């Protein structure tokens, strides 16, 4: 299956303040050497904790920022040869859409729901005819089970779940091929979360929209996604199908993460707590495994040579000498 989206050695390094007048700048390695592939109509979960780079990666893939190195291919063609601003003006913009984390912050407070959904339709689909525009907006609202009466309301008059659905309606209205969702349910009550998750799954199956679901919550990702990639300090440390990663994790960080996640049903995962402080993402050592210092199975080899992402068979990848 050809990939819908593929990244090649994608990198995002942020230059920091110079320490001395003419000295070299420190560089913060937010995203380092990422090779991620998303197939059409597939839901991929991107999991990690704060500072792992998943938000930066999601913004790169959505072309809101330009990477410092590497490229992103959409249907085999590079979309990083032009700048993010140019991409915003090209017809490819509508192929990749984003749903943001905080539904309150991501909806402009002075616009009605109708206008919020209509804006991208007008701009990206070039729809100027008023009746057609209204129909498109209404169809989009129906697709996310948003009552038509809410179209004239303002964001502050909606509940959290309704706001989240407006964010999805807006993204889906232009019929993208890929939706990047940055923690779309973390600001919602758990009783509302289910509606949004099931809605996303329905949209994926019915319209063939691929999803990149960025989250820190493994229990949610496990239900929605077919493949999971685990990130740590800018790198992917484990990748595979949901069953492979969730039921048979091979990287020590994934194991620790899974054992830390509270669940209602008791699990067979061995209880592990990570001690020690994480390494800094600023100028990380190229020869040491980045999980060193917290890893329960760290050995001498881990300090001399940083492990590559190895194929353990069946599409299950792990970045560890001992996986």
């Amino acid at each position: 299956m050809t990939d819908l989206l593929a990244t090649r050695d994608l990198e995002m390094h942020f230059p920091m303040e110079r320490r001395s007048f003419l000295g070299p700048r420190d560089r913060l390695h937010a995203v380092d050497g990422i090779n991620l592939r998303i197939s059409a109509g597939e839901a991929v979960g991107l999991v990690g904790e704060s500072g792992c780079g998943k938000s930066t990666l999601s913004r790169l893939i959505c072309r809101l920022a330009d990477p410092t190195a590497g490229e992103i291919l959409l249907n085999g063609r590079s979309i990083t040869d032009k700048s993010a601003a140019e991409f915003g003006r090209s017809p490819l913009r509508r192929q990749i859409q984003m749903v943001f984390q905080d539904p309150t912050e991501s909806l402009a407070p002075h616009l009605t729901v109708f206008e919020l959904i209509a804006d991208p339709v007008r701009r990206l689909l070039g729809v100027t005819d008023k009746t057609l525009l209204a129909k498109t907006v209404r169809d989009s609202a129906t697709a996310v089970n948003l009552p038509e009466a809410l179209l004239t309301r303002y964001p502050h008059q909606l509940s959290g779940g309704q706001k989240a659905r407006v964010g999805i309606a807006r993204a889906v209205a232009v019929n993208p091929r890929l939706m990047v969702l940055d923690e779309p349910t973390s600001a919602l009550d758990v009783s509302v979360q289910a509606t949004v998750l099931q809605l996303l799954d329905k949209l994926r199956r019915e319209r063939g929209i691929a999803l990149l679901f960025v989250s820190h919550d493994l229990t949610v990702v496990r239900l929605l996604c077919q493949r999971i990639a685990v990130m740590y300090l800018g790198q992917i440390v484990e990748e595979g199908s949901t069953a492979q990663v969730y039921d048979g994790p091979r990287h020590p960080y994934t194991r620790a993460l899974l054992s830390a996640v509270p669940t209602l049903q008791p699990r067979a995962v061995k209880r592990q707590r990570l001690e020690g402080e994480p390494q800094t993402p600023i100028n990380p050592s190229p020869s040491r495994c980045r999980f060193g210092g917290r890893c329960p199975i760290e050995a001498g080899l881990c300090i001399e040579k940083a492990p590559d992402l190895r194929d353990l068979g069946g599409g299950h990848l792990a970045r560890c000498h001992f996986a």
Partner: protein
Amino acid sequence: MTRATLDTLRYNLRENRLNLVAFLLFALILLCAIFGPWLAPYDPLQSNADVALQPPSAQHWFGTDQLGRDLFSRVLTATRLDLTLAFSAVILSCTIGSIIGAIVGYRGGIVDGVTSRLVDVLMAFPLFVLAMAMVAALGNSIINVIYATAVINLPFYIRLTRTEVRVRRDLAYVEAAKVAGASDFRILTKFLLPNVASPIVIQASVNLGWAVLNAAGLSFLGLGVKPPTPEWGIMVAEGAKFITSGEWWIAFFPSLALMLTVFTFNLLGDALRDILDPRMRT
């Protein structure tokens, strides 16, 4: 949105008496400005040597000046001129300053750096002296007073808008607009400026008070407005000569009008902030 603002307005005026006072005073001053010339009992330019230097009485509420002109009529009529000067200057500097500030705040980088340094330079001058210098250089007329007042108020709006835009430009709804293909211009006009309007309006209302004072101050020094035009600044200047000889009312009443106007605009600014600032809503 306006419905919500009206509700908040009504609630606020009920709860906070001072805000109500602010609005009432503002309405009063506005009425004086609009209807002043018709309400004035005497012609403000009509001199009558027989009744010169009369203290306040039943026929002349504020007394008369050295040329026998009714002071009450003059103070009342002057409202229109002083407010016009203030409003024109503020509207001019607000519009231009906000646009510059918005562009600079959104772009950042070198444009921001250079503009901010220029604003710093401007603010390093004692602004009133700068206004004086401008009027002296450009010529002694009312329009130049407006220009000068506008220029010295420019930095405040540039800085304010720049900060407000900077705070909001990284918010999620701006990113959402980018994902929806909006150009920078669209983002500024459709998404950012409407949200930034409130703090600007609040600054503008306080600024009005300062602008009135500024125009009056320039006139006091003989720059801008020329006699016999009734204007509070000139009237204070003329009346100053008579304070030591006991005719206190000639300077007193125009000063009172000035003070009341500035006070009203400051109160209005506070009231508007209470009403428009979403964070202060209960």
